[in-house]
C-alpha cells in the first residue's frame, strides 16, 4: 500500500509535538493525566490515522482532510464580537454558555458556574486538586483505546467543557457549548475534550455546536466527549452541526449509563466538508433507556458518516435509534449502526431505523445496520430504507396549487420532522426548523 505522505507528515508532526505540548501545558509529570496522555500518544503512534482498509472507515476517507499542514497549538485567545456570533446561539432561552475560540476558553462570552454544580472548563478540572478524584474516576475511562482518533484527542486533551451535576439536581437552564474557529490560523486542528457527569436523579440538557467563522481557512475538529449518567439520571444532548464547506468534524461521544437512567443524543448534521460521528452507549445496569436520533440534510460534496454502537450488557434495557437523511447533489451519507446484545442482557428491546432519501444525481448512501445478538429472549429489529419522494403525493399537492418546489420541501420537511419529535428545547427546535427551511431553500409558510 502506498503510504500517503501527507498523512505521515501530519502523524509525525503530532507525535513529535507531544513533548512540547506537555511542557506547554505545564503538566506535573507524576500525575495520572501524564500517564494517560503518554499511553494515548503511544497508542496513536502505533495505530496511525484510520484508512479505508479499516472496516469502520470503509466508506469514509480522511485523506482529503488530513492533507493539510494543521497548526496544533492554538494561539492565545483571539477575540470576537458577540454580534458576529450571536446567530449561532440558541436564543430565547436562559442558558449557561461555554464558548471556546480556536480551542481556548473565552470567559467574556461565556456564562459558567460553580454554584452547586460545576459548569466550567476541562483545563481547570485537570489541574485543580479538588477535581482530582473526579478526573481519576471518570476521565478517559470509556473513550476507546482502540480508536486512534480518540487516542489522539486524549494525548492532546487540555480544554473543553467540564460539566459535573451533583445528585438530585435538575439543571434549570440548558447548557450551550460553542466552539468557534476564527481563521487566525490558516489551517487549524482543534481537539476539544468534554466530560459530563450527571449525578443520581439529576437532569441536564446540553446543546453543542462547532462553527468555523472564516470562509477560506480550513479547520479540523477532533472532539471527544465522555458522558456518565448515574442512577435515574436524565441527559439530553443535542449536537448541531451546520458548518462551512471547509470545516471538518470528527466527533466521538461515549456514554456510560447506570440503572434506570435515560440518555438521549440527538445529532443534526446540516453541513461541513466531512462530518464523522462516533456515538457509543455502554450499559452498566438494568432498566436503562438509550435514545439515538439523527438527521442529516446535506448537499454539495459533503459527507456525513454516523457510526453508532449500543452495547447491551444487562437485562431489561431499551434502545431506540432513528437516523434520517436527505442527500442532494454529490453528497455522501454513511450509516453504520451496531447493536450488541450480550447473553446476560435478556429482555432487551433494541430498535433501529435508518431512512434515507436520495435527491442528487450523484449522491450516494452506504448503510450497514448491524445486529450482534447473543441472548434469546430479546426483541431486536432494524430497518433501513433508501428511496425517493412519493410521486403521487407530489402530484396530489401540485393538483392543489402548491408549487413543485414547495411540495417537495413539504414532503422533505415531513420526512425530517420525525427526527425532531424528541427535541425538548422549543427554542432549539425552532432554530433547527429555520436551518432546515434554509437548507431546503424554501419558505415554509406554516407555523413551525
Amino acid at each position, binding site marked *: 500500500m502506498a503510504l500517503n505522505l501527507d498523512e505521515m507528515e501530519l502523524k509525525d508532526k503530532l507525535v513529535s509535538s507531544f513533548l512540547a505540548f506537555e511542557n506547554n501545558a505545564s503538566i506535573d509529570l507524576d500525575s495520572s493525566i501524564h500517564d494517560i496522555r503518554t499511553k494515548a500518544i503511544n497508542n496513536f503512534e502505533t495505530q496511525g490515522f484510520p484508512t479505508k482498509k479499516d472496516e469502520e472507515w470503509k466508506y469514509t476517507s480522511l485523506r482529503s482532510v488530513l492533507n493539510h499542514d494543521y497548526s496544533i497549538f492554538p494561539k492565545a485567545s483571539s477575540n470576537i464580537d458577540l454580534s458576529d456570533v450571536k446567530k449561532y446561539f440558541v436564543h430565547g432561552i436562559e442558558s449557561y454558555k461555554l464558548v471556546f475560540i480556536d480551542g481556548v476558553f473565552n470567559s467574556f462570552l461565556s456564562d459558567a458556574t460553580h454554584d452547586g454544580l460545576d459548569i466550567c472548563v476541562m483545563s481547570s478540572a485537570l489541574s485543580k486538586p479538588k477535581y482530582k478524584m473526579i478526573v481519576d474516576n471518570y476521565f478517559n475511562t470509556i473513550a476507546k483505546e482502540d480508536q486512534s482518533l480518540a487516542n489522539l484527542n486524549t494525548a492532546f486533551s487540555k480544554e473543553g467543557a467540564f460539566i459535573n451535576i451533583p445528585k438530585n439536581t435538575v439543571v434549570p437552564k440548558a447548557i450551550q457549548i460553542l466552539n468557534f474557529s476564527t481563521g487566525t490560523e490558516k489551517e487549524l486542528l482543534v481537539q476539544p475534550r468534554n466530560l459530563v457527569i450527571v449525578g443520581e436523579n439529576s437532569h441536564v440538557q446540553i446543546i453543542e455546536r462547532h462553527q468555523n467563522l472564516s470562509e477560506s481557512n480550513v479547520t479540523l475538529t477532533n472532539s471527544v466527549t465522555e458522558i456518565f449518567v448515574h442512577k435515574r439520571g436524565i441527559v439530553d444532548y443535542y449536537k448541531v452541526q451546520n458548518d462551512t464547506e471547509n470545516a471538518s468534524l470528527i466527533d466521538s461521544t461515549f456514554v456510560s449509563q447506570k440503572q434506570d437512567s435515560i440518555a438521549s443524543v440527538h445529532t443534526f448534521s446540516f453541513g461541513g466538508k466531512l462530518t464523522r460521528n462516533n456515538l457509543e452507549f455502554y450499559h452498566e445496569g438494568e432498566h436503562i433507556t438509550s435514545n439515538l436520533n439523527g438527521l442529516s440534510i446535506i448537499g454539495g460534496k459533503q459527507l456525513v458518516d454516523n457510526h453508532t454502537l449500543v452495547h447491551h450488557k444487562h437485562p431489561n434495557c431499551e434502545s431506540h435509534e432513528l437516523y434520517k437523511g436527505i442527500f442532494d447533489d454529490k453528497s455522501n451519507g454513511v450509516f453504520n449502526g451496531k447493536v450488541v446484545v450480550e447473553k446476560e442482557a435478556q429482555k432487551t428491546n433494541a430498535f433501529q431505523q435508518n431512512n434515507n432519501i436520495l435527491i442528487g444525481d450523484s449522491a450516494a448512501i452506504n448503510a450497514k445496520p448491524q445486529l450482534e445478538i447473543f441472548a434469546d429472549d430479546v426483541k431486536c429489529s432494524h430497518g433501513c430504507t*433508501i428511496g425517493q419522494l412519493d410521486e403521487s403525493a407530489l402530484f396530489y399537492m401540485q393538483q392543489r396549487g402548491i408549487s413543485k418546489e414547495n411540495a417537495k420541501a413539504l414532503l422533505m420537511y415531513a420526512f425530517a420532522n420525525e427526527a425532531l419529535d424528541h427535541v425538548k428545547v422549543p427554542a432549539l427546535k425552532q432554530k433547527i426548523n429555520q436551518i432546515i427551511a434554509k437548507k431546503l431553500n424554501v419558505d415554509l409558510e406554516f407555523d413551525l
Partner: protein
Amino acid sequence: MNKFTEDDLKKELEHKEYEYGFYTDIESETFPKGLNEDIVRAISKKKNEPEWMTEWRLEAFRIWQDMEEPEWANVKYEKPNFQDISYYSAPKKKDKYESLDEVDPELLETFNKLGISLDEQKKLAGVAVDIVMDSVSVATTFKETLAEKGIIFCSISEAIQNHPELVKKYIGSIVPKTDNFYAALNSAVFSDGSFCYIPKGVRCPMELSTYFRINEGGTGQFERTLVIADEGSYVSYLEGCTAPQRDENQLHAAVVELIALDDAEIKYSTVQNWFPGDAEGKGGVFNFVTKRGLCEKNAKISWTQVETGSAVTWKYPSCVLKGDNSVGEFYSIAVTNHFQQADTGTKMIHLGKNTKSTIISKGVSAGKSQNSYRGLVQIGARAENARNFSQCDSLLMGNECGAHTFPYIEAKNKTAQIEHEATTSKIGEDQLFYCNQRGIDTEKAIALIVNGFSKEVLNKLPMEFAVEAQKLLEISLEGSVG
C-alpha cells in the same frame, strides 16, 4: 412423495447424531498429500485435459500462492493445512456406465443408505442425477432424454473434452481466478463437477440434480459447477450434499458459476447437510463456497438454500444483475446447532436499469452455535429504478448461541428503492404452551414452529427437496430444547 409420519420421526430421534455418518470402502486412487505445481499438472493430466486447461489451472495456482486466507468472516476455526490435504481421489473403476447395473454395488449401497436410490429417483421423481462421489462423476442418468432437447448435462471434465469452446468461453468469467482465496484454490485443483448447457429457447423438462459427497478421509472436495442458460431458456438445478462422519476437519471449496443470457431463467436450489461435527464440536466439514450468477437482459436467477450442516460455513450466493430488467432472488434458511458456525448471505449487484432483487434469509441458532447473515446490496450509478427488498429474521434458542446480521447497503443512484428489515426473536412461550396443550410435545412443537418460521423459503424449494429439507430442519435441532 413419502409422507413424514410420527413413526418416522421416532425412528429419526433414535439417531441423535449425524445419521449419514458411514464410510464406504471403495478402492480409490488418491494422490499424495500436498500441493505444488506438479500436483496441479498431475490432476490435469489425469483428467486428460487440453493444454489451455492445464495452463489455466497453473495460473490460478500461482495466483493462489500469493493470496492470504480471508479472516473477515465472523467464524473461528483452525485453519486447514493446505499441504496436508490430498487433492485428488477418484474411485478406481473409471469406465463409464451405461446403466446402473454396471455401477459398483457397494457404491449403490451407499446411495441406498442415503435414501436417494437412483432407481427410485429415476422412476418416481423424474430427476436426472449426475452423482459426484469423491469428485469423479460416475453415473449420469437421463442423459438421452436431455440430449434430445439439445441439453448438455455432464461432468465438467467431460465438457472440457467434448465442449471445450463453451467451457473456455465461460469458465472463470463470473468467478475469476483472482476472486478470492478459495476460488483461486478451486480453480487450480478442481477435480470434477457438473456442467450444464441449455440451448436457446429450451425449457428443461426436468429438475437437474447433483449429489455431492465427500467420502475418502483427508481429501478435500473441490467441485466446479458451470450452468449456462442460453437465451430464453429455463432450468431448475438441484444440489444436495451429504458427507460421512469423519474426525478430521474436511475442506470443501467449491465454485459455482451461473450464466443466464437474455430472457433466461435459472433456479438453483441447494440442500446442504455436510457433517457438522459432533455435539462437542469435534470434526465437521469446512464449507467455503463461492457461488455467483450473471444475469443478462430480462434474465432471472434464483438461489434457494437450506443450510443445516458443516462445522463452518462461508457462503454467499450472489447475483450480478448486469442486464436491464433482470431479477435476482435469494431465499435461505441456515440452521446451526451445537458448535456450528455459519456466515452466509448474498450479494446483489445492480448494474442494469429496472433490476429487481429479493432477499429472504432465515437463521435459526441453537446450542452454542453462531449464525451470521452478511449481505451486500449495491446499486450502481447507472442502475435506474433498481429495487431491492431484504428481510432477515433470526430465531434464537437458548442464550449460548448468537445471531448476527451484517448487511451492507450501498446506493449510488437516486432512483433506487431499497428496503431492509431484520428481526431477532425467540420461540414464544405461548406458542409452545399452545402446542403442549394440544398434546404436541415440546420437541415436536419446536420443529413445527421452526418449519412455520422457514415456510417462506421452504416453499421456494422443488417438491422433492422441500420434504427432505423439512426433515433436515427437525433433525438438526434435536436436543436443542433445554
